[in-house]
């Protein structure tokens, strides 16, 4: 499965979600499909995308939050999984694209390439729903089910270690940050 195909497969479902991604290929590929004001790309602070998503989810329980994480990033903040498992926000879907490598810095293999099982770690940390998927249709189904489940879910999707040619996009970091904040302000009236 290619990560960009996975993103395309669920892109329509992201329209009403609050989306937080990690840096690198995920951010560039989602932008290449089409940026929306409800998408925020954390272009550094590796590991903290899931914590940032938790902060939004706890602050605004009426919003559906989706975090696109990666194996390298999640391995930097495994403790954060125990915090997710502790508070279990029902409005958070945590997707981990696991390409078993640190692709954007040269493709060095991560520990998932030698057997570390992120879905297993998430489950053991207390995340109530976890799924491990390898095929596009499995991913698409798991994502839709997670949105409908009303329960914290971590989906670990194995993807190929290929990405875009470039990671820098036209969208400025601060432009994205303030646009995203304005988006969250704008939905405050309708949703909690």
């Amino acid at each position: 499965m290619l990560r960009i195909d996975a993103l395309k497969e669920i892109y329509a479902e992201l329209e009403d979600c609050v989306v937080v991604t990690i840096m690198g290929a995920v951010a560039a590929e989602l932008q290449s499909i089409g940026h929306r004001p409800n998408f925020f790309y954390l272009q550094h602070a590796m590991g903290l995308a899931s914590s940032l998503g938790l902060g939004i989810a706890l602050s605004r329980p009426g919003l559906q939050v989706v975090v696109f994480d990666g194996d390298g990033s999640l391995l930097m903040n495994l403790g954060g999984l125990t915090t997710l498992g502790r508070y279990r926000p029902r409005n958070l879907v945590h997707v981990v694209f696991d390409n078993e490598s640190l692709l954007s810095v040269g493709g060095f293999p991560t520990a998932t390439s030698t057997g570390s099982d992120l879905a297993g770690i998430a489950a053991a940390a207390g995340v109530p729903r976890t799924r491990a998927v390898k095929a596009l249709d499995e991913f698409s189904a798991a994502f839709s089910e997670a949105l409908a489940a009303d329960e914290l879910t971590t989906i670990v999707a194995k993807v190929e270690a290929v990405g875009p040619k470039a990671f820098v996009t036209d969208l400025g970091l601060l432009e994205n940050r303030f646009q995203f904040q304005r988006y969250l302000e704008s939905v405050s009236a309708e949703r909690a």
Partner: protein
Amino acid sequence: MPVSVDSSQIIFDALKKDCGVRLISALPETWLVHLIRMAEEDADVTLVRLAKEEEGVGISFGAHLAGVKSAMLMQNHGFLASINGIVSGAQLYRIPLLMLISYRGEFGERDPWQTEGGAVTEPLLEALRIPYLFLDDPEHVAQRIAKAQTLASSTNKPTALLLCRDLMWEEG
């Protein structure tokens, strides 16, 4: 344990009543025990117990974008453990953080293991250009916390308050 309940209450009231803080992230440390309990027992405040302090940067980042005022409670060694998140998260993205840092290892410290962190806390805050004030007297706690929050908000950057022994510890 002679951690000051009175000073902890003054800090908590300042955060909640004067500053409107509704989310507090924390990692336990001796001087913070009463503050964490107060946050836990208050129905208006969401307490997020962390595995490591750097998570708190992400949580406060998200809370800020979502319109909720937050504060972080940590030991100075937790501040050391948070620096990448502070620099490449909060500073890069202009996020106000209100950091309350217990200042272990300063004059009067008896625990040898706290002393190296104490020695580098202020130089690191200065190197990171994070404005900071000491909280060492109950009389100025509320005012200084409010001022730190105001500056964090107007700069869209982190500010820090160093919780000092004279405020937090009653044995002298």
